[in-house]
Each structure stands twice: as C-alpha cells, then as structure tokens.
C-alpha cells in the first residue's frame, strides 16, 4: 500500500482523490497562499517597549527555497512604523549642494529611465543573536532572517542628481524618509552615482508599504539601514551628517573603546537553511543540504559544506542564477548515517573573500557590538534528528 488511504490493494476500478470529485475554487483577483502553508509567515516580530512599529520582523528562511523572497515575507526594520503615504502628495526632493533644487512626483518618476535587478537586502544587525555567549535556541529565520532578496526596479538616482546639477564640492548625500522618525543616513556620493536607485518596484509590482511605498533608496550590497524607505529628500552635502542612525547606531565598537563609522558593504556570508532548527530530520538516509550565500561586494564564487563540524569540506552546487549582490542558492546531497553530526557552510566571493568563523568575527569586538555578523553557522543534528544552533 503506497498512498494515504486512497487505494486498496485489490482495487479493480479507478481511484480518484476526493478533491477531484467536484469543481474547485474560482479564479481570483489576487491569489492567496495555501491554507496549509499559513505557518510560513514573518518570524520574531519585536518592537521597542510600548511601540508596535520600532523594531523588526524576519524572513522565515527555513521554509523558503530559491533566491527570491516573496514581498509579503521580506523582513522589516522600521523606526517608527509604516507611514500611510498619499502617493499623489508624496514628493522626492533633491536639495543641498546642487545648482537647482528639485521636486519630483511619483508620476513624473515613472517617466524616467529605469533599471531592474535581483539583489539582496540585509540589515546590518542581522544575526546579532550570535553574540550571545550561549547559542540561542532559535530557528534559521529567527537568527538570520533580516536578509531577503527581491527584484528591485527604479530610477538611477544619478539621473536625478544630474538634472539638479551637483556642485563640485559635494561628496555625500543625506537621505531621509517620510516616516515618523524621518530616518536619515549619509551616503557617499560615489555610491549614489555608481549604482543607487530610487526603487519604485519590488518583485514586479509597486513597493509594498512595509518596504517603502511609494519609493525607497536601494544601494546594492550595502547595509539595509542606508536603503532609506519612504524616501523624501536627498540632500547633497560636502560631509556626512553624523545622523543618529550612523553614529549612535550602525557603528562598530571595538573592545579597545574605539568605534568605526561607515562600514557599508555586507560581508560574504552563507547559511544552511535546511536542515535547520525546527525542521526535524526523518530516518537516516540521503538529505539535500541547501542554503543561501551572498556578498555585498559581488558574486558568490564558491560554497563549501561540511558535515563533520569543519574537518572536511566539499563544494556545493550553485543554482543557475549567480547574480552579483544577490542571494545564491547552494545545494549538496548528504548521506546522514543517523549519528550526531555538525553541518556548516562557508562561502567565498568573486574577490576571494572567505566567510570567517564566529571567533574571527568576534575577535576585537566589544561584547555587544552586533552589526555585520557574518560568521560560519553550525547546526548540530542529534540521533533523534533534532537540529539546533551550536557554536562549532
């Protein structure tokens, strides 16, 4: 007997599943996920005491496959909730050290040259839980779900700056958002002219409010906090503004008391998303180890996996679409013999940068300096097939 009660061994007639016996549900304006996948939702939602919109929600990486994150599951990091913006009244301003300060409506931006690329966005605070002295009992998404990937489409910001006429002495911009925190970050002008876009589309459709509707800054490979959502003003300056979010936050304190500002590209990183905590293994046998690798500086060149806690490594296969500054999906078959095992992945990018160990990442850091954590992740599997976060 091979099926779940649909067949009997001595069947003479045809056997059809119960849901084939009457017409199904109609076509719909907008297709919803299956009710059976309702457990696939954002994880670890948390907000500062007394607030509902000053915090994070995380992508459930362990339930996803491929290299794109459905927009509904893209992680969130808001500083004062999601503003209810009227797109007809919203304006994007270009101000500061320009010949002609300008104001753009959404409608006018839709007439500008545009590009579209599939790229990751990672909060520089992602994986901060790995600083805990003892490994936290949490899932892959709960630990590392402040990273997502989307197709981002919009107008190169350089085109708008050229229209305004950037002054010779300019070398930064200060971008701020139309949320209640008017969140602001300084961004080097060189990055802006290189590949920054004013994103209007995410995964084919207009941005969703949680990701910056009607427009956001997108800086390929750089820390998520700089990709200012609900973008309202790009003020051209000669120096960084030293905003609260680039000094008090998103700066890196060393254990000698010195701190580093402006650490921008996200480091080379990888994670095994399955097996991972919460996805129990079945009996011994062949499993597909799969995961994600990315680098803020370019393409992933190689991902190695280990099933013996790092003693030996083997190259994983990479899915076809290895795009610069995007998530790359890796896969590797693994014959699990049913004994306890520790599985790891290690990424290398096209510049030869190799993902560091947890120890290497933490060396020299202050004890609570959690930004830019990109250490190798270890999952331990026990005889029962339970998977948990460990420090290898």
């Amino acid at each position, binding site marked *: 007997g091979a099926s779940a009660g649909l067949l009997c061994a001595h069947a003479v007639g045809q056997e059809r599943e119960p849901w084939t016996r009457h017409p199904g549900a109609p076509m719909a304006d907008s297709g919803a996920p299956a009710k059976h996948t309702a457990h696939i939702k954002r994880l670890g939602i948390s907000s*500062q*005491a*007394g*607030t509902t919109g*000053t915090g994070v929600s995380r992508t459930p990486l362990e339930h996803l496959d491929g290299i794109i994150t459905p927009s509904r599951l893209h992680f969130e990091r808001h500083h*004062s909730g999601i503003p209810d913006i009227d797109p007809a009244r919203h*304006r994007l*301003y*270009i*101000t*500061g050290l320009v010949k*002609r*300060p*300008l*104001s*753009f409506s959404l409608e*006018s931006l839709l*007439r*500008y*040259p545009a590009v579209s690329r599939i790229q990751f966005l990672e909060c520089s605070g992602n994986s901060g839980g790995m600083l805990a002295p003892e490994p936290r009992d949490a899932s892959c998404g709960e630990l590392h779900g402040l990273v997502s990937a989307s197709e981002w489409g919009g107008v190169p910001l350089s*085109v*708008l700056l*050229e*229209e*305004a006429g950037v002054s010779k002495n300019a*070398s930064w911009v200060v971008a*701020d958002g139309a949320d*209640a*925190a*008017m*969140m*602001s970050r300084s961004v*080097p*002008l060189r990055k802006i002219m290189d590949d920054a876009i004013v994103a209007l589309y995410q995964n084919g459709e207009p941005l969703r409010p949680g990701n910056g509707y009607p427009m956001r800054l997108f800086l390929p490979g750089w820390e998520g906090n700089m990709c200012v959502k609900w973008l*309202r*003003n790009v003020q051209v*300056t000669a*120096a960084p*503004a*030293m*905003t*609260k979010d680039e*000094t*008090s936050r998103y*700066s*890196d*304190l060393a254990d*000698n*008391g*010195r*701190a*580093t*500002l*402006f*650490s*921008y590209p996200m480091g080379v990183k990888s994670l095994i998303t399955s097996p991972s905590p919460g996805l129990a293994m079945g009996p011994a046998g062949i499993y597909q180890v799969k995961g994600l690798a990315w680098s803020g500086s370019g393409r992933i060149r190689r991902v190695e996996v280990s099933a013996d806690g790092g003693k030996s490594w083997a190259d994983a296969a990479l899915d076809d679409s290895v795009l610069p500054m995007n998530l790359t999906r890796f896969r590797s078959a693994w014959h699990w013999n049913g004994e306890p095992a520790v599985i790891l992945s290690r990424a290398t990018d096209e510049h030869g940068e190799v993902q560091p160990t947890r120890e290497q990442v933490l060396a020299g850091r*202050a*004890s*609570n*300096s959690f930004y830019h954590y990109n250490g190798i992740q270890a999952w331990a599997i026990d005889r029962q097939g339970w998977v948990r976060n460990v420090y290898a």
Partner: protein
Amino acid sequence: DNESPQLGEELSAAEADAVSFTVMPDGAGLPAGAGTVATGEKIYLQQCVACHGVNGEGGPNDRLAGGHGSLQSNLPVKTIGSYWPFATTLFDYVRRAMPYTAPGSLDDDEVYAVTAYLLHLNGVIDGNAVMNAQSLPLVKMPNRDNFDWAWQP
C-alpha cells in the same frame, strides 16, 4: 542626458531649506532660536520622562545618559554622553523623531532646550549654558575622538 525627461520642478532656496531637516556637525541647517537647560528639564519631565526615565536613566526605552567610561568594559553602555561624537546629532534627531508619539510637535526653541538638558544630564555642558545655532556646534562631545571611518570619500 538625452533619456531624462527633466521633470523636476525647481524649488526656491526657502522651499529647499524647509524640506531639508539635516543638521550638520558644523551647525549648517540649525534654525534660529535658543533653549536653556532649565526649560529643557521642564519639557523633558512633561514629554520624555515616561519613556526615557528620570535623569535619562532609560526604561522603558533607550537610556539617554550615563555609561561614561564603559566603552572598554565587558558591557559597554552607549549613550549620548558616553558615545555620540556630535551634539548636533541630538538636535537633528529630536527634531525629526521625538517625542515618539508626536514628532514635529516641539518648536525649535523647545528642541534647543531639551538638547541642552540632555547634554547637561550627560555632564557635557554647564547648567547655565544656552544652546543655539552658534553654541551647539561648538560643544565637544567626550567620545568625539574615538571614531574611525571605514569609508573614505
């Protein structure tokens, strides 16, 4: 650029200034007005203390004072006084974002005042100091010289 429709509408200098909130470390962007520590204390006790605690000690939200000398310890406490490199950041941020439930409700004098109070709480300025567009950029923050830049223009 022959692909750009050039649809930007020009802003007057006054308009551009009105939509630009950034206050630079050199004081550029600071408005007219002024505030004292004493006025700031009153405002703080009305509008801020519920979230940031008496004397900025924190609770339920971020701690705003103290932590001096803790940065090299096993548990660094980063506050305005112990960590922030520039005093202008405080004016810029409070004007944008605080008080949390009603950002934009303080006028410029009030933002100067509460800035003065928080700097005083952190032992950075004198109780008689007046903060305005001239004095604020001159305030030297204790941790000012302990920052490196990972990115050089």
